């Protein structure tokens, strides 16, 4: 049997094809693009909420998609412990749907930012980081206008090990210069209490093939490899 991953397509998703491409052609799993109204969780071992501008990001990034029936389906997966990742707009959707804590606000600069950054892995015990060494520094791009992570409950996140990755410099040091958008504590990705659901502002699907990477790295793949590993361990 092959692993089946759903890539959910909301009106306005635009990294949906990219995620499908990487899963199918780079990771060699069976990924399917599914229109949000047609998503049925029972057919899948995991799901990806891709980047983009669902419903134009009108009102607030992610909020309208968070009300889609696809999210109710995904909630079943969440409770069941299957892996779910929200990338960029997907992360925004998952915070608005309260799968994940906190919120993503407009970048401090008020500008969209597209660039490669470094992130450090703070927690490698999640469904998407179990194949990465803790404290490794990864090279990966961001592309967003609303990526400033905020929570009114930082202590709880820290106590529960819910911070997954942070923006750092090349050497893994957390500094203001390496914070591209004004995120609290340089947070770039978080997970739920159970660690089967994560949200990332950076785009692993854009960093999974060496030809796309300025330094020839493929660090984005690590997140998907971890997901596959996690699914294999659970049994599918």
């Amino acid at each position, binding site marked *: 049997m092959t692993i089946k991953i759903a890539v959910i397509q909301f*009106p*306005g998703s*635009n*990294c949906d*094809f*990219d995620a499908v*491409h*990487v899963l199918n*052609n780079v990771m060699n799993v069976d990924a399917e693009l599914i*229109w949000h109204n047609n998503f049925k969780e029972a057919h899948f071992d995991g799901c990806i909420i891709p*980047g*983009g*501008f669902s*419903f*134009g*990001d*009108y009102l607030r990034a992610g909020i309208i998609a968070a009300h889609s029936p696809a999210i109710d389906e995904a909630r079943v997966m969440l409770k069941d412990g299957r892996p779910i990742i929200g990338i960029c707009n997907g992360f925004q959707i998952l915070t608005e749907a309260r799968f994940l804590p906190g919120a993503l606000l407009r970048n401090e600069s008020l*500008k*969209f*930012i*597209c*660039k490669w950054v470094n992130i450090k892995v703070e927690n490698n015990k999640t469904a998407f980081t179990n194949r990465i060494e803790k404290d490794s520094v990864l090279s990966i*791009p961001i*592309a967003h*206008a609303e990526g400033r992570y905020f929570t009114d409950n930082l202590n709880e996140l820290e106590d529960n090990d819910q911070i997954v990755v942070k923006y750092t410099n090349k050497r893994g040091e957390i500094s203001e210069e390496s914070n591209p958008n004004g995120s609290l504590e340089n947070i770039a990705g978080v997970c739920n209490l159970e660690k089967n659901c994560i949200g990332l502002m950076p*785009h692993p*699907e*854009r960093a999974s*093939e060496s*030809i*796309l990477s*300025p330094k020839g790295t493929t660090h984005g793949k690590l997140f998907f490899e971890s997901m596959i590993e996690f699914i294999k361990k659970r049994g599918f």
Partner: protein
Amino acid sequence: MPKVKSNGTELKVDLTDKEITQIKELLNREPSITEWGMFDVMHSEHCSYKSSRPKLKFFENAEKNYDRVLAGPGQDAGVIDIGDGYCLAFRIESHNHPSAIEPYHGAATGIGGIIRDILCMGVRPIALLDPLRFGTLKNNPHSQWLLKYVVKGIADYGNCTGIPTIGGEVEFDESFESNCLVNVACIGLGTIEDFNHAPSRAYHPGDYVILMGGSTGRDGIHGVTFASRTLTEMSEADRPAVQIGDPFTKKMIIEATIEAIKTGHVRGLKDLGGGGISCALSELTGEGGTGALIDMANIFTREPGMTSFEIMLSESQERMAFIVKPEGLEDILAIFKKFEMSHAVIGRTDDSGVLKVRDGENLVVNLPSTALSDAPTIQREEKSPDYLDALHKQKTPEPTKELKEIMHALISSENICSKEWIYRQYDHEVGVRSVVKCGEGDSGVLRIIGTDKFIAASVGTNSKHCFLDPYEGAKGGLVETCGNVIANGARPLAMVNCCNFGNPEKPESYWYFSKALDGINDFCRTLKIPIVGGNVSFYNEDEVKNTSIKPTPVIMIVGIIEGAENIITLPFKKPGNDILLIGETKGELGGSEYHSVIYGTEGGVPPKINESIIKATWEFLLELYSKNLVEANHDVNKGGFIITIAEMCFKNKLGANLDLTDSNVNDLRDDIFLFSESAGRFVIESATKEHDIIMEIAQQHGVLVRKLGNIIPEPKIIVRGLKENDIFLDVIKLKELHASTLPDLMEI
């Protein structure tokens, strides 16, 4: 403006008396007010190209002369066959006037429009580029405001639709202060089958005409007339409300359209842009040799009570017209429902050759399908401006500053400095195709997933050069944009252009246009580059000074790279490697950055183009690539080769040790040699052991190559062998100046 009357209603039209008489003769009756409105729009400069068509005649045979051209000028976009069953569509367009008064929505809807043009060739839009012109930024809040919101408009629209902006170009010059230029280009990729599925013609009677997308509102009526006059001629009150773009709806339109085309049921496709429904329907039926009966009642409107005139002429954004086979209707409607896109069957095609629009009992439009597209042309007068002679005679002053100081001033000048402030705001990677990204090379390079082919694209021209000599300047634009794709390893395949000029009714402005087109035409013919499309924007004038903008024939080139190993990038890579200058440096400083930044003058004689040398240089480089002899390449333009070398040092913080003793073949003064903008030159990095073979190949091609020195690991540039003192430059300092200029100007 003359007035026409119909049934007691009066309408101001932009038609000549002769046109008015001809229209009445053609119809043998008095047109309805809606029909008058349609003629008015379709005969506007923007839609009919009435002033420019006599010159554009030269372009008309691309399909015949080049096997790879599938669609040439006259279509919504040029389309070329790139092998393996794929085709590329591309086009460039101007959105200058709306952007000059509302930079955010003006630029955004410009992007919206160019995306539609590509989409209606049946292919997926995969990349955007944005050549821009503004007044100088320093101490100029107006220009800063325009740049800030134009970039934001492009970013918000392009990013949301998921089409990466992979490159662009920008120049700052006083002449663009009140009339900025916002040109936008788009590239689409699809299979040749997709392209064949959806011509922008309605060839078959009995097909359904479907309108899909946004609703029709009162906004933007007469947008094209607006684009066909100067900003001063249109008072605030006359100006149509600038359109509000809706990138989210556009994204849905893209997905729904592509899904619809894949069914094979779509037989014709047309975007609604300038002239709205009128223009789309008359082109579909007129060029397809059919007619159609449209029922106005089925057109969904945004506000109640819109008249037939308003509906037929509305330029509301985000709408597409589909011509669909009867048996495919259900499937197509189901797709539009899935995407929750508003849509309506508004009529059917027939074989009458007449376009009829019914408003209740009345036929408000009843015109031969071809009537609207047969606009007359106007032969404009041309005359070279009197001021040019004096300008050409200006000499480069004796330098009053140290060369090092000049270098610092040039590298931090608005036109040479880094454009990162702009492209960071663009998602240039969505689509996972971007292989050479903004700032990493002279052009944007995209992979075609599933093949080992890559597309390289570049846009640009040098407005200062064109101002002094439009013929050589336009050729120079071609040399530069072709040079940009060649620098990345590509062979130029085809071009489109966007001609931005002043008022064509002024003989001087028309002369610029005419000469620039001669230049484009001569160059492309000699170098066998098919011209597959273009766009003309006239009436770009400075409102206050009542002078024209600098003539700006923007060129867009796409090229193809076969094989990932043949992609070349800009940064120097390895200390010890040779630095070679390809091409001859002459004393060509007319319209140079050196003149304008250091002396505040813009005269002199601009670079001349020698096609046979250009051709030899390209063939020489392509041969070096095929033998894997080039490690880095960057073409030389503004600021001269020394600026080129500095830029190549930046990324990897390397340096250069140069000895120029033997390279100044024309014995030029030091400053003239260093900062000359002679066209068609490149700086390449190659391994020292390959020096002799490279020189041998150069000799075979008759190309001048000089070794300037070597790459060094320390970030400094040492220049020896000049007539006067040696120069020592700090790369980190130069890089800092290069990077900080725009942010410092923009983030006051």
